[in-house]
């Protein structure tokens, strides 16, 4: 106990440092994959496939907002693979010299309008969102879904007056789900994962702002070979299959 | 205004059942040990506690008549002076004293003027602009007296007003209370709760002694304190009191004897005064001995009665020279045997001057 306590304390203080050390035992290898939160389902399935193919390898998924992940990687967090929800955050890591090779786009995502089941407000397209009787919630411009929203606004000439600019897609979805907002602009994949709590109203202008998801193995990877193999799995047939299942488009 | 109160109150295992009468312009001292019900009695009179049963009248007004009538504290016309001065810390001294007139609707200027009058009355005019935190304990209590009086209460309640003061400050406040309580022409009734018989002696006309919520003795102050009729009163009081006229460092008795002691600051030469000393400080010698040593008051007497009193024997004297009549002295059982003391034995008593306190007395 006496020896354990200080090291446990040290782990608490330096939580990230402890993650690496545990994977260094013989035979047990760990692959740290940092992926955008919207990839949770698809990458969950890919993690299982990868572990089945590589005995003794433990894939650890760190799911968070892309910009948070990019900051963590640039601050030296132990990561082998980075899958971002947009190119801007991948570029941050590229600029910092953190990428091994070049990032490649593995999936695309498009905006859709999330509404309450049955679409009680009768929303039919993007232009309807400017209606004054509607409470509309979007993402803040600083996050990918928000910049995509801005692009659609510019392309269509429709200006929205949102009640709130949320920090992420899940918050927008929640406001719709709780009935506080009549409509919210979210990604197709988010509506898929929300099940029957919300309904999706698709609109053709969403093609104006297709979001590209890039993936890269990282130069600081503890497992460079495994990192490249995981990247290839995502880019390959298996990746395409799992991503399409939850609503992602292909590049 | 004359106060009459009959009160019954139970709280858990404690019960209070007392009747008190305080004629207009007089002071009643309530003596008793902790937990005897003194403060409960005071709380009922102030209206802060509601008795289970009882009647309280002050002059023509009824303050409490169970179970329906209970006049609220702020409507009673009572003033309360507690052990701690409890001056409002956020108000200056003058505003503390002005609190009561102000609460009764007087203007700020009128209230302040009244407050300054009362402050001079208690010799604290120079403290008017200070904050309570800048006062000594004695000064604070002086101001508290002024504050209680500034409400011009018909009934003044004093709850151990000297208990929290140090030995230097207590005599001065006792003197102040004596002056304001006994000022001629006042119609106020006062109830003084204390555990110190000296306070009662200095301030009160009458005494009731409480024990376990019951009155065990009542009467004129000097009678009760000098000749307790119950062992209980004897234990908490039982003092030797010798009355006379203040003279120098002592009291000159009616028959010309002089008892030396330590006078309190408010003793005025030529005025009535009383010498007070405890039975334990009286030494007993054979009649023929003349004790030597430090200055002593000595007097010839004869043994009247001998009673066991806890671990000692309390001796009371009869027909001695002048002031020796009716004194109490505590002696050990061994001394009783050695001196062959029995009723009628001539003896000589001695009291060290340092054990005698001299206080002003009031003739009643």
């Amino acid at each position, binding site marked *: 106990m006496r020896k354990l306590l200080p090291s446990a304390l040290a782990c608490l203080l330096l939580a990230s440092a402890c993650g690496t050390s545990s994977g260094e035992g013989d035979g047990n290898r760990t692959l740290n994959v940092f992926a955008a939160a919207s990839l949770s389902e698809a990458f969950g399935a890919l993690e299982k496939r990868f572990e089945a193919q590589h005995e003794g390898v433990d894939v650890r998924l760190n799911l968070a*907002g892309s*910009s*948070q992940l990019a*900051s963590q990687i640039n601050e030296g967090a132990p990561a082998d693979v980075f899958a971002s929800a947009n190119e801007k955050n991948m570029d941050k890591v590229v600029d910092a010299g953190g990428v091994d090779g070049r990032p490649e786009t593995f999936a695309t995502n498009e905006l859709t309008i999330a509404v309450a089941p049955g679409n009680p407000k009768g929303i039919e397209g993007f232009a309807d969102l400017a209606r004054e009787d509607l*409470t509309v*919630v979007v993402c*803040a*411009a*600083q*996050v990918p879904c928000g910049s995509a929203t801005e692009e659609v606004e510019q392309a269509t000439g429709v200006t929205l007056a*949102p*009640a*709130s*600019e*949320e*920090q992420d897609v899940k*918050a927008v979805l929640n*406001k719709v789900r*709780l*009935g*506080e907002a009549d409509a919210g602009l979210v990604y197709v994949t988010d509506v898929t994962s929300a099940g029957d709590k919300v309904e999706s109203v698709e609109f053709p202008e969403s093609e104006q702002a297709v979001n590209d998801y890039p993936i890269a193995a990282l130069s600081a990877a503890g497992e460079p070979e495994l990192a490249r193999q995981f990247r290839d799995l995502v880019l390959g047939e298996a990746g395409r299959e799992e991503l399409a299942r939850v609503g992602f488009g292909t590049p | 205004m004359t106060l009459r109160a009959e009160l019954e109150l139970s709280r858990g295992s404690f019960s209070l059942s007392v009747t008190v009468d305080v004629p207009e312009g007089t002071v009643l001292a309530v003596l008793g040990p902790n937990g005897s019900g003194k403060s409960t009695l005071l709380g009922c009179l*102030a*209206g*802060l506690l509601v008795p289970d049963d009882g009647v309280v009248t002050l002059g023509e007004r009824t303050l409490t008549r169970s179970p329906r009538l209970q006049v*609220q*504290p*702020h*409507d*009673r*016309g*009572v*003033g*309360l002076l*507690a052990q*701690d001065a*409890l001056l*409002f*810390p*956020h*108000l200056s001294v003058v505003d503390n004293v002005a*609190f*009561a007139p102000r*609460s*009764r609707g007087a203007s700020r200027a009128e209230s302040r003027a009244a407050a300054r009058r009362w402050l001079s009355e208690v010799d604290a005019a120079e403290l008017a602009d200070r904050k309570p935190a800048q006062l000594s304990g004695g000064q604070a209590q002086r101001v508290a007296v002024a*504050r*209680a009086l500034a*409400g011009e209460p018909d009934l003044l*309640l004093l709850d151990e007003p000297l208990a929290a003061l140090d030995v230097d400050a207590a005599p001065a406040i006792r003197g102040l209370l004596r002056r304001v309580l006994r000022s001629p022409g006042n119609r106020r009734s006062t109830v003084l709760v204390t555990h110190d018989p000296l306070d009662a002696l200095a301030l009160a006309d009458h005494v009731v002694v409480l024990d376990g919520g019951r009155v065990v003795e009542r009467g004129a102050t000097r009678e009760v304190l000098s000749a307790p009729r119950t062992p209980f009163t004897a234990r908490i009081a039982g003092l030797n009191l010798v009355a006379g006229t203040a003279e120098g460092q002592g009291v000159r008795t009616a028959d010309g004897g002089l008892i030396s002691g330590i006078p309190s600051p408010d003793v005025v030469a030529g005025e009535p005064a009383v010498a007070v000393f405890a039975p334990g400080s009286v030494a007993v010698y054979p009649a023929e001995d003349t004790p030597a040593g430090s200055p002593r008051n000595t007097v010839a007497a004869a043994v009247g009665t001998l009673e066991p009193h806890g671990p000692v024997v309390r001796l009371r004297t009869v027909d001695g020279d002048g002031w020796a009549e009716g004194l109490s002295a505590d002696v050990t059982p061994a001394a009783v045997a050695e001196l062959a003391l029995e009723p009628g034995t001539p003896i000589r008593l001695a009291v060290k001057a340092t054990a005698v306190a001299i206080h002003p007395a009031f003739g009643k």
Partner: protein
Amino acid sequence: MLWIPAGLALALVVLPVVGLLARTDYARLPELLTSSASLNALRLSLVTAVLSTVLCVLLGVPLAVVLARSRSRGVRVLRAVVLLPLVLPPVVGGLALLFLLGRNGFLGYLLDVTAGVRIPFTTTAVVIAQTFVAMPFLVVSLEGALRGAGDRYERVAATLGARPWTVFRRVTVPLLLPALGSGAVLSFARALGEFGATITFAGSLEGVTRTLPLEVYNQAEADVDSAVALALLLVVVAVVVIAVARPRALEGRP
């Protein structure tokens, strides 16, 4: 012997702030802080935190007096309830407020149908969320002071002829001022830093509901330097408030 844990405690509080200072881009600081988004957030934060502190005082003082002076047993349960916002994660507090005052909440629905008033996504919602999380700080510090002081002064005031309202106004409240000061400073600080309940209940829109903490979070997505600069601003505002109020209020002196 106490200096080791005391030093650790101090380090835990101070070192992260030092880290913040170290990472600040001082060259860009003026430009980052004077952007219209930053100024809007600062103004909104100050206005809402002041309003919610005032609300805390108006509602919290009577509540504290009732809690401290009442002798009934039910009051003990009430006291525990009052502390709830301290233990609830703020996001849960925000959800709770939505369930009460949201469009589908029972009170919110009533307000919507009868008066056409909707609370979520308004500055009012920000003030309500901040008051919700900050109120316990005021009530707890006041109630402690009230219990410590007892009612001796109030009793004396009553015997001096003061009616209950006069006693409350001239004795109870002035005696409470030091504790009220520290309670108000704590409430203000808590309101200023409030994040989770606000973003859940009020949303995030520049000039309307996006207070300084929300703006920090928002900027952190795009421009870390800007977020750090804003966080520094928040720290400075908090330190100024505490420093101005400290000698009188936090040390409990009148």
